[in-house]
């Protein structure tokens, strides 16, 4: 039986345009979104044994969906097929480590200096490669001391004094790996007279979905929906996130992919630059000081899919002194946990090659991007430091 909501494959007019925009098909034998998505979905529904293992190669970057003229949810079809039809071993330590960002984070932030010490060692990297297949060329993200949540409640007890408020969905990266981004967010929002609130949250589920832990992803998603809709109902606060992929998941994937009802929150969630853009447009701008830097801006795939790139660029253009080069929009290749797997390592590097080259040509002092894993990929493959747009805005705040 075909479920009615799953027939978007039937809208495909076989134009092959999606293949043009698929970064994986460009560099590999991956047959491309058209074949792996709508073309073979109709066969898989009837005969699941027809499933083709090249499905795994799709990195879920969603560039095919941006291109499709018929609104086929190609990437969603492929992700669903991956976990429905592909056989997996039940014990996959590497995938478990990569996908349980919150568990890893909770543990590692307790012993961060020890964990960071070890993950920096080449011998440890070698064993990680040997035993669980994380490419030794990769630098694992460093962990902070303690969680952002703890620091937030300790250091910002006075958020009530602001007239306006948001809920900040900090996500795993801010919570465990990048407190600075969280602090900068509070600084920027407070300068706009907006107070920051946190609620109980779990990992948004993006890495779980990518690694096929669907039940766990659903559990997390439902937890987040409950917790965010509860506070939204009570307070009518908007929800913001500094991660483009978390935003996309909360807004769209919870319903499209996980079949959960997120209607209470999906319109209330905004990627942070859109939220700030709206404030700026309505005249609520903080005083700015120059940030004299030459920067190259890379737009992440999932922010492209959200149609949100324009807001980031607009904010950056307003910062005095910032010499901004906007890079041609292309995939960096890491696609979340994808580039952290040895079987996709070369692919992921091949995909990103053009981007790395255009960054070198732009010859900036720093690179700016909205996505935490894009940032890791770029830092590993170029000599530049990568910052989030919110970091740059915080530098521009004139106190």
């Amino acid at each position, binding site marked *: 039986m075909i479920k009615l909501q799953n027939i978007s494959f039937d809208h495909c*007019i076989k*134009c*092959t*345009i999606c*293949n*043009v*925009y698929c970064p994986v098909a*460009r*560099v*590999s*034998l991956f*047959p491309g979104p058209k074949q792996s998505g709508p073309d073979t979905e109709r066969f898989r529904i009837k005969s699941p044994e027809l499933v083709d293992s090249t499905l795994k190669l799709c990195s879920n970057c969603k560039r095919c969906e*941006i*291109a*499709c*003229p*018929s*609104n086929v949810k190609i990437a969603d079809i492929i992700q669903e097929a991956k976990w429905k039809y592909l056989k997996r071993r039940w014990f996959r330590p590497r995938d478990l480590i990569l996908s349980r960002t919150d568990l890893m984070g909770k543990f590692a932030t307790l012993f961060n200096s020890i964990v960071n010490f070890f993950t920096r060692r080449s011998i440890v990297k070698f064993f990680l490669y040997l035993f669980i297949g994380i490419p030794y060329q990769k630098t694992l993200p460093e962990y902070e001391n303690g969680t952002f949540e703890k620091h937030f409640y300790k250091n910002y007890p006075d958020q009530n004094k602001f007239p306006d408020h948001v809920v900040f969905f900090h996500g795993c990266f801010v919570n465990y790996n990048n407190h600075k981004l969280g602090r900068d967010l509070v600084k920027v929002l407070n300068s706009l007279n907006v107070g920051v609130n946190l609620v109980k949250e779990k990992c948004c589920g993006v890495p779980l979905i990518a690694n096929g832990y669907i039940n766990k992803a659903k559990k997390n998603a439902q937890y987040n929906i409950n917790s965010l809709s509860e506070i939204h109902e009570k307070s009518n606060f908007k929800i913001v996130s500094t991660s483009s992929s978390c935003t996309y998941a909360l*807004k*769209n994937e919870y319903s499209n992919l996980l079949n959960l009802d997120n209607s209470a929150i999906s*319109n209330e969630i*905004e990627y942070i630059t*859109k939220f700030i853009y709206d404030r700026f*447009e309505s005249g609520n701008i903080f005083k700015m000081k120059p940030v004299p830097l030459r920067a190259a801006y890379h737009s992440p795939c999932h922010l*492209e*899919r*959200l*149609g*949100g*790139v*324009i807001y980031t*660029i*607009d904010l950056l253009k307003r910062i005095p002194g910032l010499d901004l080069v*906007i890079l041609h*929009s292309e995939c960096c290749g890491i696609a979340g946990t994808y580039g952290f797997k040895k079987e996709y390592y070369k692919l992921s590097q091949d995909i990103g090659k053009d981007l790395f080259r255009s960054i070198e040509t732009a010859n900036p002092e720093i690179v700016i991007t909205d996505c935490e894993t894009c940032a890791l990929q770029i830092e590993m493959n170029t000599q530049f430091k990568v910052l989030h747009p919110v970091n740059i805005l915080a530098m521009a705040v004139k106190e």
Partner: protein
Amino acid sequence: MYDCLIIGGGLAGLTCGIKCAKEGLRTAIISGGINSLHFSSGSIDLMGYSADKNIIHNPFKHIKSIKRKNPQHPYAKIPVKTIEESITFLTDELKSEKLLFYNNSGKNHFRITAIGATKPTYLSQESVFNEQLDLALKNNTRISILNFEGFRDYYQEFAFSNLKKNSLFNKLNISSGSIKLSFLPDTKKHLLESNSIDIARLFETEKYLPRISEEIKKAAGDSTIITLPAFIGLNNYNKIHKRLLELTGLQIYEIPTLPPSILGMRIDNALKSRFSSLGGEFIAGDKAAGGEIYNHRVTHIYTENYTEATHHAKYYVLSTGSFLSGGLQSGFNKMYEPVFNLQFNWSRKRNKWYSDNFFSAESHPFLSFGVNTNAALHPYDKDGNVIDNLYCIGAVLSDYDPVREASGGGVAVSTACYAAQKIINGIKG
């Protein structure tokens, strides 16, 4: 607050955006999904056939007569001079992106289709048609229609036999041949599984040009002109074309393939790059879902991803294309314009939407359906009121048939420039 917000980034929306941005207007284009340039021949048709199906050689002369015969036609609403200027504008803008176009000094020329038919058109890329080819066609030249062996989106035998039958080419000595390269050296994809974009990328690496040239020479035999399916590069096409000419000593021309159309994508890339280098803002990945009309004016629009009032502008342009691009939509027994629910010209009887024969010379009635506008390209809301700050341009318009007339590109470009000029006047006072 934008000066001008354009919904739909196809040939029409991009041309309009470039013109506005060039005048310093704060301009944004919001566009979900690719445009129909990806399916097009990459030539810009202006007016190719008359209502009685005769081939038109002098399109501007014919356009003048449309004003009398069919006052609802988009061309009838625009001064002929504006239409002429808009074609020059497009040619110049593309030239500044190094994409060069040929026109037959104000007259139509012929482009060759993927199956070897000929169609009258107005602008073609220099690698498709130029003066040299025009000259060669008039002489007894040896020409070879080539394909890569195994590439399935182009049928050179079909093209070959159709061209041989064509009286335009009876002076030519036409043959056909295959270039042998059974898999792509970079990705090891077999040619059987590849489409035009894979091969365009192979050319783009430049690494294999000497090897490909050797194979081309072998396949060309004693012909001095050869045609290839259009995939000589997506970005570096000028350089690659030149290198191939040097390496083979042959004249090389391109013939469009089945989609994805490399020739069309070159125009798409060039226009987008021009638009952003002029400071225009392009929002891909999101779609306009609806808009609010108050007091004969659009007050704001909202999108699929952001359902609250998100975008405000002084002027709005609707360039969402026709049915293929989703600018017009149909249900079982109704048709509508989905963003503003504008007044729409269509037939209520479903069996009057299409002709029984798919390749009917009469074309299909639905191709002329679309949004109805006044002479200034302002549409009407569902109660029949003119919307003062909204313009409709390109394939979303009614009362012309881009296929039967071969007029799609010209209507898109000229309505775009016409609306842009009105917006510029409105902003600058």
